[in-house]
């Protein structure tokens, strides 16, 4: 089980900020593929990965990063702080 978090418009499109996901995905990209299969709202949120960023256990990473040992994966648009 892994905690999956969504922020900003990713959160709005999927309709929830956080959920627990049972997955055997080896990488973030594989997890995204599993989520896309679930429902239209996931497919919509993940339709363009170039518009998304991902963090594993609160560290920015890439979509090909391995999920082994990860407790928390977060998806969000490019950040707009400052």
């Amino acid at each position, binding site marked *: 089980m892994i905690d999956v978090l969504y922020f900003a418009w990713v959160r709005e499109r999927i309709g929830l900020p956080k959920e627990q996901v049972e997955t055997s995905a080896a990488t973030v990209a594989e997890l995204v593929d599993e989520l896309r299969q679930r429902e239209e709202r996931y497919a919509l949120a993940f339709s363009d990965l170039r518009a998304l960023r991902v963090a594993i256990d609160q560290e920015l990473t890439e979509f090909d990063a391995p999920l082994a040992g990860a407790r928390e994966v977060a998806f969000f648009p490019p*950040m707009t702080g400052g």
Partner: protein
Amino acid sequence: MTVRVQSDEFDAGAELNAFTGEVAGAGAIVSFTGVVRDVDGGLTAMEIEHYPAMTERAIAKIVEEAQSRWSLAGALVIHRYGRLETGAQIMMVATASRHRVDAFQAAEFLMDYLKSRAPFWKKELTKDGEAWVEARDEDEDALGRW
């Protein structure tokens, strides 16, 4: 190094004075304050979302990177989240160094990285509705200079 992530208002002038008092020996102090501006005459407020478990850590990492690049007597970052009305102060950065060039460069570096690497997302609320602020290519490009 001080990093504060908060929904409360802050007093930029009081923060600047407190920071200046803490970095005795530094000859140069630079501050940056970001304010919610009414971009097209229709903005009523801004809503800032963040990723609580990650935010302070991500900012601390950015500040550590600045400290490794420039000789700093101190660095301060305050960033708010939640609903902010037009004219409200969003965030501030302050840096102190012996030399002005270091203080300026470190402050600009912090701002560039906070823009694109700290987990905040801004939504603009206008009379006509709401829209997430899109990241600008030039903000991502700005990282290239460091």
